Structure formats: structure tokens, C-alpha cells
């Protein structure tokens, strides 16, 4: 390890959700790590909505936690409202979401990082990267800040969020800024452009923030959180803040008329904004134009914390001028007298097309430079944190000359996320959805620890004691599941009565308890009378859920495992880093161009590139084998 002054193993640029996880991971893996940020006070800041998790995002948070990352624990500390989503559906597609006290989240994240060994935090604005030639190849060697001070490291992780050439829009007025109140990063953006990277422009937006004291809560529908909160972290029972409610209100025809009449002052509809925005998170003006037949849209009024009067009206993200924002807000029931504390706005920023990255998030063109978060075209705190964790791990592994750490599509949503980004690229802000995961039944929130904790421990992120917790949890789950599979009950008078009493229908022949558990409405507790010594009615919710999922889904899970094994086979065929895709004969120009631009690391990844045909893969495979035979 390098111990020179002004020199680190890994430098993280940016203190958002990607940067925090990257800094944590790199330092936990033993690296001397430096996190630089334009403003130490905004480390861990939630720039948009005050919430963590949500559909498929909850999965990401649980995976981050299972690997040993921070987000789950910080979200637990800051949570003021828990809601598990899709409870009417199967366990694979249930996701957790919390409202956060955003100031507590930020404070807890800062506290955690400030007292992390081997991690230093410095405030400065990075103007450029230091590039050096090593063995005839350009590599990253550190950063230069706005005062011209050099800080050196062979591994740099860029997590610039919306700051690269950030441009904020409120109506037809715009101002340079990474987000409202912060300066943009211009020098770094110019340097990335000069590196001849494929850089594009994206847009995202946020809502005006309202003063809670000016809202008539009595006309809004209350939305209570879950009575029994399901915490994010598998391992630590973090202290819990008092829990609060959210509220719902609705837009109406008048709101829509106000918006329509102001479209000529919308930066989106007048062409001032060039970047592509997320279609799954449209602005209110976009919703009203594209879905003109809808006469109302719901708005969730979410508190931003316990000791702030700011309220986040989720559903009216807008970049209309402030006078229109005021008028449209006040057309909504409950908000007639609402005061806007901060205007809503849109922000445009540069992103680097992620097909230029390896599956471990290193920029192929510039070894040692890792990118994570919105710079890779994603949106969302959870997507950013997931990438930050993987980039941090891999920066540390590169520093220690270890092989890259890559999660497969059958192992984690994080694997799906990064494979999608690095294989397909993106043209709009990328958000995770469960439908993106082809092995959805394997990748559940409940088993994220089983899937990932052994890996988190083996890379050095997750402490041994946490892995022990996981092992003993699944020993119990497997033992009970096997007991149910191996215990048969016969149609004796007593058994028939017990089955009928539990509302499970009839019992005509010898039946395994596991088969009974698959009947609709059957829970583990219903079966406890048949195996009194197993204590089925005293299991923790976590264990009970684990057993029920294992048994109820087993035939489907088995099928998905078989399919996943096929995927593994093609992902095991590694393509050498210097393989010349252009030299493979018999490929169409389109396929050749795609292979050259993505530079897939495995045959499996090559096959997932959109437009690459099975015949092309067969051809490619033959040439890889030929190249390997000659080597």
C-alpha cells in the first residue's frame, strides 16, 4: 500500500449515494481511500424524494445490505414510514419502501463515513483527472482540484450524479447547477468530452416542496405505514424513529387546464431541454399532454422529516415557471393555501454511455477509472448505491491486483442492472423493474442474504459474524422445509378433522405436509399440530416466510435454476480482453459494430447484445476457440 502524502489507493469523486457506498466498500476492503465532494454537508443528501426502496428498488437495497453495504442500515435509521409493496402478490415481487427523514439519513451517512477507518473526506471541486501513460497505455493517476492541488491514486471512482455540465430549468429560465443550490462540474465534463468518449445528455426533474403548515390535511386521505415494519437490514436492528403517515390528494380538471395553458412557457415543450427524461417518472405536464383522457392524477404528500416543515408532493414533478407552479398547486384540494418553499425544476446533465464500461464498471478506454450512478445513465438512489458498491469493491480489488468481482443476472438485481447497462447501454434514465430480471423467482428480497452474503464476506465486506447469522438462518429454514417434505400424514379421523378445521379442505390419502402447505391459505402455523415438536407456530416471520417460499415456489424455482445454469455456461466462456472482434469473418456489419462497441467480456454477454443473432454467436464462439487454441 502506498503511504505517500497526497496519495491514496482509491479516490472517490462525489458524496452521493454511489459515492458513499464506493467509499465505504473500498475502505472496508483495506484500501486507503479518499472521498472528495464539493460540499461535505451534502454527503448522503436525498436530492429528490425522501424515500428509499420501492418496486425492485427494495430488492436492490436488500442486496446492498446482504453484501455488507450501507444503504439498508442508513434507511432503517432514517425511516419514518415503512410500507411493503405488492403484499397481495407472490413473495418474489414484494418490495420494501420507506419514507426517510432525509436530514437524519444524511447525518447518519456522514457519521458512518467520517468514523470509518482508512477513509478520509475532503471538500474540493475536481477540475480534471491526472492521466499518465503506463506501458504505452493511458491510465488514470489521480485528480486535480479547483485550487490546482493534485491528489494521486491509481484508482478513481467518478460518481458525479447530475453535476456534469448540470443545467437547471425553471420555466424558460435556466441556470448552471448540479442541483438547485449547487455548482455544476464543468472542467471534468470538458475533459471527458476531450477523451472522445460517447457522452450523452439526460434530464430529470423534481417537485416543488411545500410548507406543511399551509396544507389543509383534513381533506387529504391518510396513508398509514405498515403496522409491523419490515426492516431493510438483515443483520442489525437499528434504532427506529417515530413513525408518521403520508397523505393522498388529487389533481383535477382545473389543474390540467392551468398546465395546458402554460405549455408555451415549459422548457420541455418548447424544446429548451434536449436531454431525454424518464418515461416511468414523467413530469405532471408530460402526463397531462400524453394522457389527456385522464381527469385526475394522485399526489402523495410525503413528509421530508420529523423536524422540518417541508413536504414532498410526489406526483407533480415540474419545470414550469414558478407562477404556474403556485397556481397549479393551489388548484389541488388541501393545497389551496399552500406555500412553495422550493420550486420544482428539471436538471439536464451529461452521462457516459455505459456500454463503454466493463462488467465491473471500469472505463475500458481509461484503466483505473470507474464510473457509478447517474453518470452511467441510471436514475434512483438505489441504482446509484448498487453501482457505487460494485465500483468501490472493484477499485479496491484492482488496487490489490485481484480479479474483478461481477454478479450474474441469476445472482442479483445488481447483476441485472450492471449487465443491462454495460451490454445494452441506455438512452433514457435507467430504473430497475422486476420485469427486467429473467430469474425473478430466484432473486427475492427475502433470500438476498442467502444469495449474496457469502460473496460479500469473501470479498471482505461483510463481517464473519453476519455470515454466521445467515448460515444458521438457512440451516433452520432447510431443516424445517425438509421435515415438511419428509413427513406424511394419513387420513385418520383426527387428521381429517385437523385439516378441515384449518380450512384446508379434505384429506383422502397419505399426504406430505409440504404438499398441504401448497394448498391455498395454508400457513406453517396450520401444520404445527402434525409435528408438535417442530415449533412451527413459534417461528420468526423471517424463517416462516423463508420456508413457505421454498416450498410453495419449489417447482418454479427448480425450473428457473435449470435455465440459469444454461446462462452460466455461456457466461463461463470468457472472451480475452484484447480479442479483435473486427477480425471475425462472416459477421454482418451491424453485429460487428455492436461487438466492437460493447467489447463483451463473455460469450453470454455477447449473446445478450440486442441485435446479435444466435448464428453470429456460433461464429464468434468458433473464433474464440480458434484464438485460444493458437494462444
Amino acid at each position, binding site marked *: 500500500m502506498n503511504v505517500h502524502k497526497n496519495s491514496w489507493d482509491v479516490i472517490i469523486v462525489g458524496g452521493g449515494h454511489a459515492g458513499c457506498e464506493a467509499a465505504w466498500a473500498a475502505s472496508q476492503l483495506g484500501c486507503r481511500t479518499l472521498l472528495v465532494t464539493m460540499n461535505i454537508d451534502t454527503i448522503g443528501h436525498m436530492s429528490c424524494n425522501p424515500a428509499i426502496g420501492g*418496486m*425492485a428498488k427494495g430488492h436492490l437495497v436488500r442486496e446492498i445490505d446482504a453484501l455488507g453495504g450501507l444503504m439498508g442500515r442508513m434507511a432503517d435509521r432514517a425511516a419514518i414510514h415503512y410500507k411493503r*409493496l*405488492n403484499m*397481495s*402478490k*407472490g413473495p*418474489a*415481487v414484494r418490495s420494501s419502501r420507506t419514507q426517510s427523514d432525509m436530514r437524519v439519513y444524511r447525518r447518519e451517512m456522514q457519521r458512518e463515513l467520517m468514523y470509518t477507518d482508512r477513509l478520509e473526506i475532503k471538500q474540493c471541486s475536481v477540475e480534471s483527472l491526472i492521466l499518465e501513460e503506463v506501458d504505452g497505455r493511458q491510465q488514470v493517476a489521480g485528480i486535480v482540484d479547483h485550487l490546482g492541488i493534485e491528489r494521486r491514486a491509481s484508482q478513481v471512482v467518478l460518481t458525479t450524479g447530475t453535476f456534469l455540465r448540470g443545467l437547471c430549468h425553471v420555466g424558460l429560465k435556466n441556470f448552471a447547477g448540479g442541483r438547485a443550490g449547487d455548482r455544476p462540474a464543468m472542467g471534468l465534463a470538458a475533459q471527458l468530452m476531450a477523451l472522445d468518449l460517447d457522452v450523452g445528455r439526460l434530464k430529470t426533474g423534481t417537485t416543488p416542496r411545500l410548507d406543511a403548515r399551509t396544507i389543509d390535511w383534513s381533506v387529504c386521505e391518510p396513508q398509514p405505514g405498515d403496522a409491523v415494519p419490515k426492516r431493510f437490514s438483515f443483520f442489525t436492528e437499528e434504532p427506529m424513529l417515530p413513525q408518521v403517515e403520508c397523505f393522498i390528494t388529487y389533481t383535477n380538471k382545473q389543474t390540467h387546464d392551468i398546465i395546458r395553458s402554460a405549455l408555451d412557457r415549459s422548457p420541455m415543450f418548447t424544446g429548451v431541454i434536449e436531454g431525454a427524461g*424518464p*418515461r*416511468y*417518472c*414523467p413530469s405532471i405536464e408530460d*402526463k397531462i399532454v*400524453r*394522457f389527456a383522457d*385522464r381527469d385526475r*392524477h*394522485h*399526489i*402523495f404528500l410525503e413528509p421530508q422529516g420529523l423536524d422540518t416543515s417541508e413536504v414532498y408532493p*410526489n*406526483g407533480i414533478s415540474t419545470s414550469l415557471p414558478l407562477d404556474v407552479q403556485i397556481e397549479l398547486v393551489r388548484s389541488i384540494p388541501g393545497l389551496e393555501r399552500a406555500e412553495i418553499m422550493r420550486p420544482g425544476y428539471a436538471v439536464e446533465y451529461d452521462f457516459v454511455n455505459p456500454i463503454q464500461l466493463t462488467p465491473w464498471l471500469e472505463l475500458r478506454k481509461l484503466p483505473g477509472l470507474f464510473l457509478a450512478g447517474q453518470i452511467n445513465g441510471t436514475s434512483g438512489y438505489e441504482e446509484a448505491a448498487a453501482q457505487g458498491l460494485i465500483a468501490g469493491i472493484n477499485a479496491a480489488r484492482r488496487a490489490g491486483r485481484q480479479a474483478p468481482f461481477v454478479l450474474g443476472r441469476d445472482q442479483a438485481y445488481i447483476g441485472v442492472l450492471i449487465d443491462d447497462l454495460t451490454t*445494452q447501454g441506455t438512452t433514457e434514465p435507467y430504473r430497475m*423493474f*422486476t*420485469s*427486467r430480471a*429473467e430469474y*425473478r*423467482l430466484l432473486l427475492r428480497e427475502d433470500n438476498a442474504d442467502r444469495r449474496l452474503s457469502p460473496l460479500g464476506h469473501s470479498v471482505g465486506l461483510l463481517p464473519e459474524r453476519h455470515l454466521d447469522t445467515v448460515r444458521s438462518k438457512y440451516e433452520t429454514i432447510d431443516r424445517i422445509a425438509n421435515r415438511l417434505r419428509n413427513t406424511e400424514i394419513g387420513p385418520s379421523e383426527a387428521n381429517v378433522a385437523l385439516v378441515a378445521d384449518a380450512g384446508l379442505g379434505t384429506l383422502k390419502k397419505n399426504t406430505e405436509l409440504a404438499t398441504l402447505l401448497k394448498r*391455498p391459505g395454508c400457513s406453517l402455523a396450520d401444520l404445527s399440530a402434525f409435528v408438535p415438536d417442530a415449533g412451527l407456530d413459534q417461528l420468526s416471520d423471517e424463517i416462516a416466510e423463508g420456508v413457505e417460499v421454498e416450498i410453495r*415456489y419449489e417447482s*418454479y424455482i427448480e*425450473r*428457473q435454476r435449470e435455465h440459469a445454469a444454461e446462462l452460466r455456461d455461456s457466461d463461463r466462456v470468457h472472451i480475452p480482453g484484447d480479442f479483435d472482434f473486427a477480425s471475425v469473418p*462472416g*459477421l*454482418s*456489419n*451491424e*453485429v460487428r459494430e455492436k461487438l466492437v462497441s460493447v467489447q463483451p467480456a463473455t460469450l453470454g454477454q455477447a449473446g445478450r447484445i*440486442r441485435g446479435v*443473432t444466435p*448464428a*453470429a454467436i456460433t*461464429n464468434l464462439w468458433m473464433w474464440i476457440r480458434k484464438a485460444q487454441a493458437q494462444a
Partner: protein
Amino acid sequence: MLDEALALFFRAPSSFTGEDVVELQCHGGAATMRAVFEAVIAEGAVPAEPGEFSRRAFMNGRLDLLQVEAIADVIHAGSEASRRLAQQHLAGGLSKAVDALKAPLAELMMLVEAAIDFSLEEHVYSISADEIVARGQPVADGIEALLGTWDAGRMKRDGVRVAIVGRPNAGKSSLLNHLLGQDRALVTEVAGTTRDYIEEVLQLDGVEYRLVDTAGLRSSDDRIEAMGVARAREVVRSSDAALVVIDGHAPGALQEICEAVEGLPVVLIINKSDLGAAVIATEGFAAVATHALSLSTGHGTEALPGLLRALAEAAGYAPGDESVLLTRARHRRVMQDALDAMRAALSAAAADLGHELVALDLRLSLDALGSMTGAVTSEDILHRIFADFCVGK
């Protein structure tokens, strides 16, 4: 100077292969052809491998997989009907039929995925199990109907396999010779897969028949002969139809034959009508037609082409609607996978097993159809959700 020839230049990407192509049209004559051939090779040209042009066309995106397979069929087309069928595939007939099933399936997939990922959205409705079944059943039926064309499609491509069955000396060989004699120019001999029978190809009115002459079938206590009969039965079972030849003068016991052709469409040929008719018990046969003739005098043989055609049609050979026929084993397998997955999805929905489990099999079915004419990705599904529903808070 080797020849005065016409040279045609097809500029990429508008040529058949999508590459620059020069076509030389030379005068006939093997010596001239060889000389020109040697000259271009000396200049650096290489001879094409079998299928090279199609392969390049496919690699360059000029043809999809179905079209490449259809070209192989055109090249190998043995009969007029199979040539027409192959040409229609080339024009995308099968692709259209598959796409017509893929579209409603993708729509259903979209609704199920929307119900999972966007269940909290006020403007997305949660599709019910009943609606899944109502929308999915026609797709399953459509796949099944397409799959049902496999036999007809295969018969067009490979010919209608007709077993000629009868007791020894009933006149099977005479019948075969007679049929082949009608169109001798098109007769080829195909080696049988076992020594026990031979297969002859007959082209008649645009239909290709594979006539299989089997060993005589009769009841026997002899163990070795019984094994031979069992093998003949296997041959009959793999046929599409049977011509049963009976000696009208001395029919003998027909029980064995009756059992052997059970389940197949049958035409009964009562031979040797010139020698006078015995009483023959034909009620055990599910005969399409029964016809008396004399192969030695030729009396009554003019009806044979019509009888063969009737037999072929009874076996499922369909002259109409040729564009939507499955003709390749790969297509059949893929469509069977699509159907199996579709049925699993429908029964999961009917049992109210949850959207995520229904979605798994819908995805497998959609992937199977996608392997015929192009994949529908999860990104495509999300795209449709965003286009059709107002989502996002």
C-alpha cells in the same frame, strides 16, 4: 479471350447477400465454363461452400432464419407443391402467422408485467385471472392450430408416405410397378432404412408420394417371421396412409393387416377382379374407398390417381392455405414449446397462482415464438407499458 459474357454488378447492400456481387453470364459449354471459372479463381475468387450465399445473406441481415430455411427448401424442393410452399415461406407467410400470435401474447405479457411492477399506479389496472385466460386461450389455440399444420406441411415438403400392405402375392409389387410406370421419368429409388422394405418416390399431379413396399403380412407362429411382421408394422405405423392390397379371388385372413393399419386412412384395392370375386370382410378397415381392379388386365386402374389423392387428403394433405404451414422439425419443436408454456401459464392463471408465476410461462412462450421471427425483450414490454399507461408519481 475466353468468352463474350454479360457481367451484372449488384451493389451492396441491395444484393442478395448484402455484399457487392458480380454475376457473370457466360455462353454454355462445359469447356468455356471451366475456363472462366479457373480464370476468376486465378484472380483471387474462392468457390462458394454449399449454402454460402444464404449464409452470407443471413449474416448480413438480408434474410431471417425462416427465410434461410425456406431457401434450403426451394433448393431441395422435389415437387411442385413443396416448391410453392417453400416460395411462400420465403415471402414471409409463416413469419406473418407467427407474428400474428406474438402480438396478442406480447400485449398480454405487458398487462401482466404492468400489474406486477406498477400495481401501485392508479391508472394501471390489475389484470384478473379470468382476463388472462380470456386473452391467452386464443393464443394457445392459434399455436395449436399452427402446430396442427405440421403433418400437412411435412407431407408437402417430404411427400406423403403411403405404405402398401397386403398378404404375400396379393399384388403389392404389381401395384407399385403400375403406379411408378405411369410417370417413369420422375421415379427415383430411395434406399430403405432397413432391408425389409424399399421406398419409391412418385410425383403425381403436383403431389409427392413416398410409396413403401412392405413385406407381406400374415399371422405366423414362426418366431423369426413374427419379428419381421412386427418390423413391417413399425414401418406402417410411421406412414401417413396405407394402400391395402387384397387378392379378390383368394383374400385369406385379413385380421393381421387390419390391426397393422389401425388408425391410418386406408384405401382397399381388391385386385384380380378378372378372376371373379370372393366375399371379403372389409368392415374391419376404416377405408376411405374400396376399389376393385385388375392389375394384370389394367381394368379399373384409371381410378388409381384419384384414389391416391383422396388417401393423401384423408391423411391431412391440404392443398389450400399453404402459407401458414409448419414444415420443419425445428419449427414444430419450437411451437410445441410455445404451446406447452402457454398451457402452463393458463393453468397457473386458472388456479390463481399469482402474476409472477403466470408471467414466467408467458415469457417462455413468447421467447419460443420470438426464436422464429425475432425476440420480444423486457425492454420492449416496458416500452409498451409506458406507451399505454400513465405511470409514475
